[in-house]
Structures are given as structure tokens and as C-alpha cells.
């Protein structure tokens, strides 16, 4: 009798959950979903302030990619029967405030925020990729592919941020450290609750 094993039959929106490490996958999908949701809100906040400026189109483009990411994680969440983090309403507000707040510091401030967040996210995706590779690269092939692709996208956003003078932002290193600390806390909490 499998202890704590969950078995599901195949269905159009669900994958077979036989033999997967449910607790690990649960965490990964929950926190990634929360992350993409937060990123969406951050870009929304930035657009609210800087939408009509010269960096508007760039931010919009990055935002669109995050929307695609979120959509994908919504699908994965349903497929793997994962519970979303209970902190979603909080990330909704916090993300928007962070985006708008950093944008109020100017275009470079917004870019600095982007650099900080995207660096955190790509590091985080990298450690997830490591975890899944250690578990069973074959079993989690599809998930690995998705996370790798997204990690590359986030890396690209990070580079775009740097290209647009993120480092020239006021109090860049302080800002970056603070934001990355916030991201670490958000990741820790969203994995668990």
C-alpha cells in the first residue's frame, strides 16, 4: 500500500500522478505559480506609472511574456492538482506596490527592480531544475523543459533591465538587496503556505 501515494487516471486536463514525488512537485508548482503571479503584478504596477514613457513598450513586452508564464502554470496547477498559495491576495497587492513604487523612482528604478526580481527568479528556477534532475530527469521531462524555458526568459528580462541602465538607478545596491530579500521571503512562504 503506497503511503501517501495519490493515483489518478488520465483525463484531458490532468496528468497521471502515479509514482511522482507529490510533495516536491506540489511545492515547485505552487511557488512558481505564485512567482509568475507576483511578476505579473509587478509589471502591471510599473506600466501604471511608466506606461506612456519611452520604456513603456519594453515593459509591456516583458509583461506579456510573464502573462504566458502564468497561463502555463495555471494549466500545470490544474493538471497536477496543486493547491495555490493562500497568500495570493497579498502578492497581488505587494507586487503592484513594488512595481509602481520602483517605477516612481524613475525608469532606471523600474529597471533595477526588474533586474533584482529576475535574478532571484532565475536562481530559484535553477535550483528547482537541480532538484528535479536529482529526482528523475526522465519522469519530470516535461516540467523540466518548461522550467528551463522560463528560466531562459527570465534571464533575458534580467539582461534587458541591465541594458536599460538599471545599475544607474538611485541606491541601486540597496534597492537590489532589499528586493531580493523580499523575494527570498516570498519564495519561502509560498512554498509552504
Amino acid at each position, binding site marked *: *500500500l*503506497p503511503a501517501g501515494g495519490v*493515483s489518478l487516471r488520465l483525463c484531458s486536463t490532468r496528468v497521471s500522478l502515479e509514482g511522482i514525488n507529490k510533495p516536491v512537485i506540489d511545492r515547485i508548482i505552487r511557488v512558481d505559480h505564485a512567482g509568475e503571479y507576483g511578476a505579473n503584478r509587478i509589471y502591471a504596477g510599473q506600466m501604471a506609472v511608466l506606461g506612456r514613457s519611452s520604456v513603456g513598450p519594453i515593459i509591456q513586452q516583458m509583461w506579456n511574456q510573464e502573462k504566458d508564464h502564468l497561463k502555463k502554470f495555471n494549466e500545470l496547477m490544474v493538471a497536477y492538482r496543486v493547491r495555490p498559495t493562500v497568500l*495570493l491576495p497579498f502578492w497581488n497587492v505587494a507586487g503592484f506596490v513594488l512595481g509602481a513604487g520602483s517605477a516612481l523612482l524613475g525608469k532606471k528604478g523600474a529597471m533595477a527592480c526588474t533586474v533584482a526580481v529576475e535574478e532571484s527568479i532565475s536562481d530559484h528556477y535553477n535550483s528547482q531544475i537541480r532538484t528535479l534532475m536529482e529526482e528523475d530527469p526522465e519522469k519530470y521531462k516535461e516540467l523540466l523543459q518548461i522550467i528551463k524555458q522560463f528560466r531562459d526568459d527570465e534571464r533575458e528580462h534580467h539582461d534587458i533591465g541591465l541594458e536599460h541602465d538599471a545599475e544607474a538607478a538611485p541606491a541601486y545596491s540597496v534597492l537590489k538587496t532589499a528586493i531580493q530579500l523580499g523575494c527570498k521571503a516570498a519564495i519561502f512562504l509560498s512554498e509552504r503556505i
Partner: protein
Amino acid sequence: VRSQLYQPQRALQASAVLRRVSDEQKEPLASSQQQFDSHPTDHQPEKEPQGPRPSYTGQGGQESEDYESEEQLQHRILTAALEFVPQHGWTAEAIAEGAKTLGLSVAAAGMFHSDGSELILHFVSQCNTKLSELLEQEQKLVQLGKAEKKPTDQFLRDAVEARLRMLIPYIEKWPQALSILLLPHNIPSSLNLLTGMIDDIWQYAGDQSTDFNWYTRRAVLTGIYNTTELVMMQDSSPDFEETWRFLENRVADAMNMGNTANQVQSTGEAVVQGLMGAAVTVSN
């Protein structure tokens, strides 16, 4: 199908008791301090493993093909004990009687807590599994086109009713079970089983929410289930029709709540837009 079998504890004591049991059965029947069946029935060869004594830590090679794990044995005893619950309640007596029908010593009841916790949790877990299987079958019929897809409110009503009907044979003793499930040491397990069941029902109802609605829906359904269960305890109408009517009203309330929430939101948005328009007009 979610298989969420509750796993009884107290492994060390259990293995000692079982070894005693299998010892007793191997001895020639001189005196009989206990009343147990001396003729194990054919379909239960596992109690008397020939060859090496059952090992509870060994894997693979040490086990004969009929080897039954301790957990499986405990599940069988608890399942057999259910038959005696209407008479003895959720107690060690019922478990002892159940053990007897399997040809085991009544001392086997010593494997379990004296308050009947494991028996109740086992029963709940079994009911939840049966519900999942039922919903699974219904879903297959819909997928094959042999049945109509039910609207959400009816689906929820039918699922909760089906699950609560499983309590009917034990309804006299169910209040006792509920109070035992609320004991602090049982709360983690009973909560786990409850949330698992509610999640299952929503899954089959087609819930695909990935936002806070996920929590709202489950909280609402849990409330409906618990209150209906309590109403059922007090219900003396024929075939519990009062309970099902209560259930129908609660589910309708929940659906309305959803609609009302949407209406409030749209009204709010309309009001805001109206105010913005007014502000623009005034400023011009």
C-alpha cells in the same frame, strides 16, 4: 481515485501481539484461554506463515508469497469490526468481535487505541475512497456520453448526499464518533481526511480555480458538509428527507452567494465609472 488509507500506529506493540497470536495458533490446542477459531479458513492463509517467522523489517526474499503486511492485517480487522459497531459502538469490543470473525485472538484488539479512534478513522477513510470511486464512475459515464453532465449545484448535492448516506447504518453511534474525531490527538488525521474528501468532490465537480476561489469554494463546501452532517444526526424524518432538503437549501445559498459577490463587484465597478465620469464632467 485518491487512496488515502489511514495507517494505524503502535507498530512495535502490534508486532509483539501478532507474534503472540501466531504462536498461539501454532501450539497444539491444549487449554484454551482465549476463544479463537482453531480452523483457519481457506482464504486466510496469511495468519499462519509456514517457514520462517514473519519479519516486520525484512524485505523481499524473507517473505512468502502470502505474506500480509501488518497494516493490511490491521485494515482487515477494522473492516470486520465495522459490522459490530451498531451493537457495541466504536469501541475495543467491536474490534475484538471483528478480530474473532477473522479467526484471530481477541487480544488483537490491543493493537489499537482503546477509544476506537483508529476504527473511526478507518471507516471515514473507507467512505471517502468509496465516494471517490463513485464519482470516478460517474465521470466515466459522462465522458462516454452515456450520462448528462450535472450542473454544479446538483453535482455537489448528490456527492454530499451519497457520502452522508454511508453513515446511515451507523447513525445511532455516529455522534459518539464525531466527538472522538474532535479529540486533539485525532484532529490532524480527521482534518486531513475531511479536506481530502472536499477537494476530491470539487475536482470531480470540475473546479479549476487557481486563485483564492480555490480556498473559498472548499471552505464553503466544508461548511455545507459539516452542518448537513449535524442536521442528519437530529433528523428523524423518513429516509432523512429533512436533511436532503436542508442540504439543497444550503447549496442554493452558496450558489447565490457567488452570484451576489459578482453582482456587488459589477455594481461597484459601475459606480466607480460613474463617479469618474462625473469628475471629468465637473472639471471641464
